[in-house]
């Protein structure tokens, strides 16, 4: 049914009340109608209101508390395969129409009077945020939060004789978003993200080691108070002490066992990014023509999803208003699906997967990962280590990256040599190097201890929260950079 649209009255300040909800509907419809009447194929408006706080504790003192508040609008217009995107903090009627004019102008279009036959109006709002409105008030107070993190930095000292620098950080972000599109999409969500970081630097004469851990959650107000700070502090200190006197690893080609949790960062970087449709658009993925073909060892099944309760990359709807889902990327080694957003679907033909994500209103959404992991296999983790005569065990991974030609590299934060099926000396300075299409077939064993870890992923649409994960896995051969 066509909806007759008339000009809605914009409030003096579009977001005067700081509320992003259904009361904006008329104004949003008017903006969308202007865009469609100008000849655009598709218009999308993303509005964001953000309220966050972060603090840093060093040794036994809170040294910095940083609240941040902000709001903004991103307007995207498509004409054929092309799109124009404009973001602004200016919520006045004039500011919003100027932003729309800019986006239209990028595609050679011009705003005219509204045609009532060109736009059907927005659907009834799909309000995923309704059940989450009390989240913020359920979170611990700033006082409780700082006390908890100070308790953690204090525990770091208790468990580590050589710990020189102790740092704890915490951030809480409450994001309120609304997506309104000319195809009728009309969704709202409230998102609560929390992240806790704990880092140490251990020192003894010329020896140094630094170890860190991150805990992250989505939609769990009690994350901080539920956190077992003592267990994390103990784990970090044990690692720092072991790595303090570790020798540098010798470079070479060798089998490797990668631990669970953050070990999954390699799959995320080396393979996951290559399964995003933005990589197909650029022609930078070797997997473009490999759908339904074997790209990994049969032992590997990998998924990306936004559904795991409380996981850092979980979302109710993506930033294009699509409900989240579980997407099987690789099943028993066979490529099953790419991650696709609206532009990806338009330009590559791969169906959207609820993967359109962005850091904020200042970025256009792009196909991005959520919670990405290799599924568990049949083995006990010890069986993987026992199967190796000479190799490396990567207990904890640092960061890494993948280049335009698919080559990846990752630093190993905590590593041990494997000799005759047993863990031996700790080693530092190791880097894992390779290419996804060569390494994926070499993942020959997956253990039964799948676990996830929180992280941040930076890419074309900014920094977003994600989860990586895997069980312990064995790679038959990989290049290890060292000294």
């Amino acid at each position: 049914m066509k909806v007759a649209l008339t000009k809605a009255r914009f409030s003096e300040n579009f977001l005067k009340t700081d509320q992003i909800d259904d009361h904006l509907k008329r104004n949003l419809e008017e903006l969308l109608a202007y865009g469609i009447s100008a000849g655009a194929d598709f218009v999308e408006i993303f509005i964001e209101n953000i309220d966050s706080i972060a603090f840093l504790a060093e040794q036994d003192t809170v040294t910095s508390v940083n609240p941040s508040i902000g709001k903004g609008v991103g307007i995207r217009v498509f004409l054929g395969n092309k799109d124009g995107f404009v973001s602004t903090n200016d919520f006045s009627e004039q500011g919003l129409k100027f932003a729309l004019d800019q986006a239209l102008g990028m595609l050679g279009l011009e705003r005219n009077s509204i045609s009532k036959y060109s736009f059907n109006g927005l659907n009834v709002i799909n309000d995923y945020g309704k059940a989450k409105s009390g989240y913020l008030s359920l979170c611990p107070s700033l006082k409780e939060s700082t006390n908890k993190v100070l308790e953690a930095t204090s525990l770091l000292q208790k468990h580590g004789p050589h710990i020189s620098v102790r740092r704890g950080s915490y951030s809480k972000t409450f994001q309120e978003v609304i997506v309104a599109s000319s195809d009728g999409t009309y969704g709202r969500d409230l998102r609560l993200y929390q992240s806790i970081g704990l880092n140490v630097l251990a020192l003894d004469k010329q020896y140094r080691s630094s170890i860190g851990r991150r805990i992250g959650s989505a939609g769990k107000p009690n994350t901080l108070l539920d956190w077992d700070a003592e267990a994390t502090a103990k784990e970090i200190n044990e690692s720092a002490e072991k790595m303090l006197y570790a020798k540098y690893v010798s470079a070479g080609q060798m089998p490797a066992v990668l631990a669970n949790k953050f070990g999954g960062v390699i799959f995320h970087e080396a393979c996951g990014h290559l399964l995003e449709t933005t990589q197909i658009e650029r022609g930078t993925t070797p997997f473009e023509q490999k759908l339904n073909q074997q790209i990994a060892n049969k032992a590997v099944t990998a998924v990306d999803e936004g559904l795991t309760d409380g996981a850092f990359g979980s979302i109710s709807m993506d930033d294009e208003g699509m409900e989240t889902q579980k997407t099987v990327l690789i099943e028993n080694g066979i490529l099953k699906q790419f991650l696709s957003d609206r532009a990806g679907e338009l330009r590559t033909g791969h169906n959207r997967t609820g993967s359109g994500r962005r850091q904020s209103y200042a970025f256009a959404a792009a196909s991005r990962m959520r919670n990405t992991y290799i599924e568990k296999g049949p083995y006990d983790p010890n069986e993987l280590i026992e199967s190796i005569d000479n190799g490396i065990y990567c207990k904890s991974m640092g960061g890494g990256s993948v280049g335009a030609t698919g080559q990846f590299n990752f630093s190993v934060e905590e590593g041990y040599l494997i000799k005759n099926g047993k863990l031996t000396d700790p080693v530092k300075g190791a880097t894992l190097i390779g290419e996804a299409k060569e390494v994926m077939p070499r993942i020959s064993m997956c253990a039964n201890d799948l676990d996830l870890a929180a992280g941040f992923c930076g890419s074309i649409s900014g920094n977003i929260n994600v989860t990586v994960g895997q069980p312990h896995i064995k790679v038959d051969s990989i290049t290890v950079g060292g000294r």
Partner: protein
Amino acid sequence: MTMSNNESLISEQNLRDKLTKLSNEIKIKKWDLGASIGKDTSVQIDKGEPKQIKASQKSSITIRVWNKENAVGITSTSDLSEAGLRKALNSAFSASEFANKLESPNFSKLSQNALPNLQRPIGQSLGVKKLLAYLIEAESKLLDKHNSIKSIPYNGFAESKYERVYINSDGAFRHMESTQASLYLYARAEEEGRKPRSSGSIKLAYAADDINIEECINEAAEKTLRHLNYQPIKTNKYLICFKPEAFLDLLTSFSNIYNARSIIDGISLSNKNSIGEQISSNIMSLSDEGLHKDNFGACTFDGEGTPTQNITLIDSGILKNLIHSEATARIFGCNPTGHAGIGAKVSVSPDWPVIYKTKGETAKYPDLQFQHTKEEFVLVENLHALHAGIKSSQGSFSLPFDGWLVKNGEQISIESATIAGDIKNLLKNIIQIEDDNQSTHQGVCPHIWVDELAVTGDA
């Protein structure tokens, strides 16, 4: 769609008046504010067609307030309306309750000193249509450079106008406008039966019209094509020559060496007594020159309103000075150096490193020249994944790189390799610094030679 070049994005006077009025209402006597307001336009293309065109109008303000106990609270906001500023002031005041009483920042004593006279042009905006037309032409020319160049997967042409403001309740009042344009072209080349190779070029200027597009195309093509004929390298220790961009990347990643904040926090490779120590070969000197003529992002003041200045950090291998904020300078008993951000705990960071050969010092191997040396060495062009491979508080690095194995003057592109070492050892093992100081988009540096670093390859 064109940016209005003469129109200010912000009324500083209006902002100061609003803050003064609101702080009086809330009974906050001491406050300061740092603001950045900008307009950006950028375009990306794919095979002659616009792929994404973006524009933004952004404002970002950080407000600090001091409570009766002289403790500092802070809030950042993008909302410049009166309601937004009131909310931010109140939020900052609440945050001051949790301030670090052991180390409280103050106003910089230089925040009302005269600023350096920085005569930088304000560029004219080209607008989307011209940016697109230039980029499409550049892509076409780059693709035509060689049959093996199949695509330009990473490309962008952008222009921006920014204004920065610093105001405090003691009357400091800083304002600066700047424009910047950037072009980047990263080509991907592929030959039958060979792995794809990728490289590129970035160019900066005050205005898009001043960008040397031809040079960017030629550099991107040359770099990409020179890597086509690659070979694996044997894992070993090699004589190394760093190209300027690579060495700047590496040294900047370890800037904690001369960063007073890092020293106080215990995460520096130096300590409070390191000034006067020999930390590198005596042929290396380093200054930080935020006002350098080639620094397109130059600003005349830092986040605390301190004037930007050029400062010698390492002279003949000896650590001479540190970079400071107001708080770190107070602890060290010196003046702030114009390297501060703004915050409850103020960060300190370098502006524009200039590395050069110390006058009058002779290198251990003065005959080494990257264009003429016959001895085998590895020429490191670009370092990658610095965020992952640098352990800044430990001093170690292990980084993938693009480069060449050079034998008898013949350069063979290295297929895939990492370079690893320890920065303190590396600095002391510098055996030659060439005389070819080159301005890059991140600083100035010549070719620098280092003895014996470990390279891991696939051979």
